[in-house]
């Protein structure tokens, strides 16, 4: 009897393309053919055009097939039994060879995503076998100040969008005198084109848990919350199970690894409100209120959850921590460019053939990322625009694809690197419609606290509609640019002040879609973009 060890992801993208059905077909096949099957439901490697990707373990490593449809299962199983397991060859049309040798993976620098897709996300043994919890053990042996200093040394900056130095945030909470402090993980991941947080939670949840425990030890917090968007039910399920396991095995609870230290963790669900990704709105929401943005100061680090000093960090920021503690701040900070240290998990999305997760050190360019990974557009038409950094990020024309992927370089180009989402549009895109959508999104998602954002966005939609129907186009362009100016200067948070970024980039870099000549005088006047 033949013994086969196979891996089929239980991650959302793979599931959305039929991974459960493929898994069922594989086990049915092996029951019928009396093969001994050890089927692991792993995370995803993040090569989404190949999902559902099925892997088979051999003495030479793991071989892959993908994208697999249920109808392919019998022929793949035959290839496995007749060729792969006996001769280490694959003859199937969906054969991909050794997974680790795939160029898409080989060209990456996976620090945070080192385990994603390799392990069963809920196997503590898998996690421990690949360096899991070694950062926590280092942290337990260190003083809280030593942990904070290590994070400062790493140069890690917040991955949620604002790129604030994580170590400095932790130092503030560490230094704040209080009987109670909290760690809050921002898992609201609302930006279109992003899924790295979700992948962490679905593929390597113990890493996030470890990062949060270390944060607790660093600042003196014994309670943590993961504020998770409700659009991610699979992540919710996996996180809940991981927390139960970590508690049972003594990593969470009142005696972390026998140290006498305490850290408890709970998942809280959002309710479809983009603004709740903004940290103060998030805290209001966690307190059971409308997600209305708070004035700052006080910073959440001083007065956060129920008025107590609170670390609010993005999933990716917290997930970088175990590596940093385990390998040292220097090891992390040797990657990157200028003031952007370490790696960023880029997310290649939209109209792209080979979309997925690409973890790279900062400093590469959009163009080289496209060349190395994208495989062109899904529609096989030319790329016209790329929106980087979510719905509040600029649309870049091809002439700007050589800007280095670095926080400051992007800011200098009036663009946004944000959470690393890269959304590709082909030449059928209508940039006026995209600008209109940005305003419409702001109408839907504004918390309503300030007028330029709440009302300005509604006016924005109307003005763009008038431009669209050539109703006093020139005057309305001036109105639109004034409106953008008002929103930029008069909004309390980045929702209102950054919505104009995609709008301005649309009419400046794609003026033809606004029926404007590229040397239009209106555009000359509106140079604040």
């Amino acid at each position, binding site marked *: 009897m033949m013994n086969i060890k196979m891996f089929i992801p239980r991650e959302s993208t793979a599931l959305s393309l039929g991974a459960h059905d493929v898994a069922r077909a594989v086990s049915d096949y092996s029951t019928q053919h009396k093969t001994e099957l050890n089927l692991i439901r792993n995370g995803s490697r993040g090569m989404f*055009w190949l999902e559902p990707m099925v892997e088979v373990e051999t003495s030479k490593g793991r071989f892959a097939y993908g994208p697999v449809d249920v109808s392919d299962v019998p022929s793949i199983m035959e290839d496995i039994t007749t060729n792969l397991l006996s001769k280490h060859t694959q003859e199937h049309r969906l054969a991909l060879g050794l997974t680790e040798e795939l160029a898409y993976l080989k060209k990456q620098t996976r620090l945070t995503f080192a385990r994603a897709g390799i392990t069963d996300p809920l196997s503590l043994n898998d996690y421990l076998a690949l360096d899991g919890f070694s950062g926590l053990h280092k942290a337990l042996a260190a003083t809280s100040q030593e942990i904070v200093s290590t994070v400062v040394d790493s140069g890690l900056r917040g991955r949620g969008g604002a790129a604030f130095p994580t170590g400095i945030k932790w130092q503030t909470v560490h230094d704040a005198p209080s009987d109670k402090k909290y760690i809050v993980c921002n898992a609201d991941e609302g930006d*279109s*084109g992003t899924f790295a947080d979700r992948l962490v939670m679905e593929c390597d949840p113990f890493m996030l848990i470890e990062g949060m425990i270390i944060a607790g030890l660093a600042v003196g917090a014994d309670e943590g919350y993961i504020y998770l968007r409700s659009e991610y039910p699979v992540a919710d399920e996996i996180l809940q199970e991981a927390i139960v396991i970590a508690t049972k095995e003594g990593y969470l609870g009142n005696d972390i690894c026998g140290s006498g230290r305490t850290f408890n963790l709970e998942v*809280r669900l959002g309710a479809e409100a983009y603004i709740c990704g903004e940290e103060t709105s998030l805290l209001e929401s966690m307190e059971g209120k409308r997600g209305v943005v708070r004035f700052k100061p006080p910073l959440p680090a001083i007065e956060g959850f129920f008025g107590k000093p609170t670390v609010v960090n993005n999933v990716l920021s917290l997930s970088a921590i175990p590596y940093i503690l385990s390998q040292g701040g220097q090891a992390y900070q040797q990657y990157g460019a200028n003031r952007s240290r370490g790696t960023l998990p880029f997310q290649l999305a939209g109209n*792209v053939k080979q979309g997925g997760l690409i973890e790279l050190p900062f400093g590469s360019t959009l163009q080289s990322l496209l060349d190395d990974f994208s495989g062109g557009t899904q529609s096989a038409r030319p790329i016209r625009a790329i929106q980087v950094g979510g719905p509040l990020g600029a649309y870049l024309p091809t002439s700007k694809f050589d800007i280095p992927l670095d926080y400051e370089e992007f800011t200098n180009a009036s663009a946004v690197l944000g959470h690393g989402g890269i959304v590709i549009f082909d030449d059928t895109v209508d940039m006026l419609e995209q600008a209109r959508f940005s305003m419409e999104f702001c109408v839907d998602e504004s918390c309503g606290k300030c007028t330029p954002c709440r009302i300005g966005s509604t006016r924005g939609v109307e003005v763009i509609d008038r431009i669209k129907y050539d109703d006093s186009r020139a005057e309305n362009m001036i109105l639109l640019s004034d409106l953008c100016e008002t929103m930029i200067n008069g909004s309390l948070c980045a929702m209102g002040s950054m919505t104009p970024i995609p709008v301005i980039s649309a009419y400046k870099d794609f003026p033809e879609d606004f029926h404007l000549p590229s040397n239009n005088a209106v555009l000359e006047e509106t140079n604040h973009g």
Partner: protein
Amino acid sequence: MQLDFSSDLSNVVKIIDTLKHKKGALLPILHQIQREIGYIPLKTIDTIAKKLQQTPAEIHGVISFYHQFRTSQPGEHKIQICRAEACQSRGSRELEQHAKEHLDIEYRGTTADKKFSLDSVYCLGNCATGPNVRINDELYGRVSNEKFERLVSTFKTQVKGR
């Protein structure tokens, strides 16, 4: 599940009593009510308010702030189409149009047979394989017009699972 109103209220009381010890318990409570009843009946607001020592206006304010919470009975199956940028670039605008025509409802509407409710959503985190649709808690990627129709007909004949 459709429950009569008196059992709704006693269920709601039970939910609040189990969750109210939590810090900032309101969202977990609202989620649990909606999970069990399918929506948050307006008549439960007074009960929630009293139990949490808040005003009904405050509770109402919270419910109305969040897109997810609803105060009317939805269809048996909740369909959500992603209308964010990455899905737009892969054809979601056309899919939205088709879905509305196929179901003969607009967003926030429910079909006459009460089988389906249609809503939009901003990003389901599946942005490399759109257009994306969520039906109840299941996610579907690369949804063409034909795939959408297939999904709808599968759910039409299916007895509600949760």
